[in-house]
């Protein structure tokens, strides 16, 4: 039986000769909450960008298992939208919503890859299209309720308060029905109360059977939420293990505090 959902081996990326990721090996288990931590500039976001197809890795392999015993799919070389369709969705560190669209529409965009309506469907608005459109609206609204944004449905996303924008990003990613959810600093810039709420939300989502991989600087969040932690520094993995192991790992302490 295969319990891995994502297997990364030998992943490297270079920008103009500088190695941003250096021979990274990683594997994420089904239904776990895992975290990638590391000092600023360690290559965490670059890692996410590789996983989601925004950057092209220069070497290595990314294998995705869309379910237990499922055939492995290589995500390397796939376009971002294909990766999302396979079941990997993400949020962004510096929020990238569609500010001119309403909150609900933002989530509806997430449903794009799970719906089919074509131009002709849009023009003639036949029964199938109408049903699909209603399904998109209903599902999106349910997701908004779930992340606690039901009150903002018709508000422009650009006008939402900061914390709500972060939640909306998560809602949008959830709408794509991912198996693996990548969260890039979900608690960045939040006050302690908001961080607690976000932690609760992440826990709930994970309880539904989603695998979550997150990047975070808030150690309290990481240590209490995640089963496994990967530490990278200068594009290399320097440690991995449970929160307890990471806390006492001398390499990690060195990387964070400086030698």
């Amino acid at each position, binding site marked *: 039986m295969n319990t891995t959902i994502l297997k990364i081996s030998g992943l490297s990326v270079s*920008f103009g000769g500088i190695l941003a990721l250096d021979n990274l090996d990683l594997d994420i288990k089904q239904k776990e909450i895992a975290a990638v931590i590391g000092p600023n500039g360690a290559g965490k*976001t670059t890692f996410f*960008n590789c996983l989601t197809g*925004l950057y092209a890795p220069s070497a290595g392999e990314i294998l995705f298992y869309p379910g237990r015993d499922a055939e492995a799919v290589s995500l390397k070389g796939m376009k971002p939208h294909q990766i999302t369709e396979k079941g990997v969705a993400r949020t*962004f560190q510096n929020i990238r919503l569609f500010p001119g669209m309403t909150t609900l529409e933002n989530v509806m965009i997430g449903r794009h890859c799970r719906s089919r309506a074509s131009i002709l469907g849009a023009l003639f608005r036949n029964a199938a299209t109408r049903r699909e459109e209603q399904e998109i609206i209903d599902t999106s609204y349910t997701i908004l309720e779930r992340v606690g944004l039901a009150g903002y449905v018709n508000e422009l996303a650009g006008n939402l308060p900061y914390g709500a924008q972060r939640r909306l990003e998560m809602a949008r990613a959830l709408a794509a029905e991912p198996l693996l959810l990548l969260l890039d600093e979900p608690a960045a810039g939040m006050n302690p109360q908001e961080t607690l709420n976000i932690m609760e939300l992440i826990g709930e989502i994970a309880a539904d059977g989603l695998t979550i991989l997150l990047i975070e600087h808030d150690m309290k969040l990481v240590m209490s939420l995640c089963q496994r932690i990967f530490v990278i520094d200068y594009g290399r993995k320097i440690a991995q293990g449970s929160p307890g192991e990471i806390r006492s790992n001398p390499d990690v302490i060195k990387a964070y505090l400086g030698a």
Partner: protein
Amino acid sequence: MHYFIELFFSGLTRGAIYALIALGYTMVYGIIGLINFAHGEIYMIGAFTSYIVASVLSLYGYPLFATVIIAGAAAVVWSGAYGYTVERLAYRPLRRAPRLSPLISAIGMSILLQNYVFLAQTSDFISFPKLIPDLPFMDRYADYLGSSDVVILFTTLIVMGILTFIIRYTRIGKAMRATAQDSTMAMLVGINVNRVISATFVIGSGLAAIGGMLIAAHIGQINYYIGFLAGIKAFTAAVLGGIGSIPGAVLGSLVLGLTESFATGYVSSDYEDVFAFTLLVLILIFRPSGLLGKKESQKV
């Protein structure tokens, strides 16, 4: 071989003129990210101003050398003034407007200036006075290139030198570079950004005016519409080289000038402009940010 050299120099001359106009585009774009569509018109106004001043002076019997210098200075001054005014009226109020609005405003300015010159002067082609004398020492090379080519190339070189000096070493040049990098930051360290933008327009317009005067003297006729094509070509050159980059604008202009010259010489003169645009499309497909443009690394 003979024909080749001839085409080479004519391409170089063309490129030099394009460069003088393209610099204005690239500098303005580098600082406020706007395609200044009215820039071609500033060039046309430069040509007209120098025509008017030179004609008046020659009618009053001034010596040729003085005429050229005064006409050139007048063209630079007035084009600079027009550039400044256009920026003040049509762009500055739109500094924080949606991205396309200044572009429409620029197109409006361009239509306005064209018709203004057409109404104030004439819609006909007018022949430009002969401002560049035949240089005696050029006789031996007359088959390859004319005196006006030499004058254009030298003038362009000198102007480029001055521009480089201004941008590298003067206070305003440093302020311009800083504003181009990050205008908010520049403002925070006490640079008067509006003044820098105005200065950029004035300098760019002055360069275009020199280009306008030179090309008019070279070709021998102008009308109110010459700014459009020259403007588009020069903008093409600026994009070709990587917009925002000053050496890029010069390189792009030379590449464009030479391509046009060789293509018209060897293939067909009917499709002169088609070659220019095809080259542009091809280069952008293979190098989406131009020849010397910084590769836009998308920050995610």
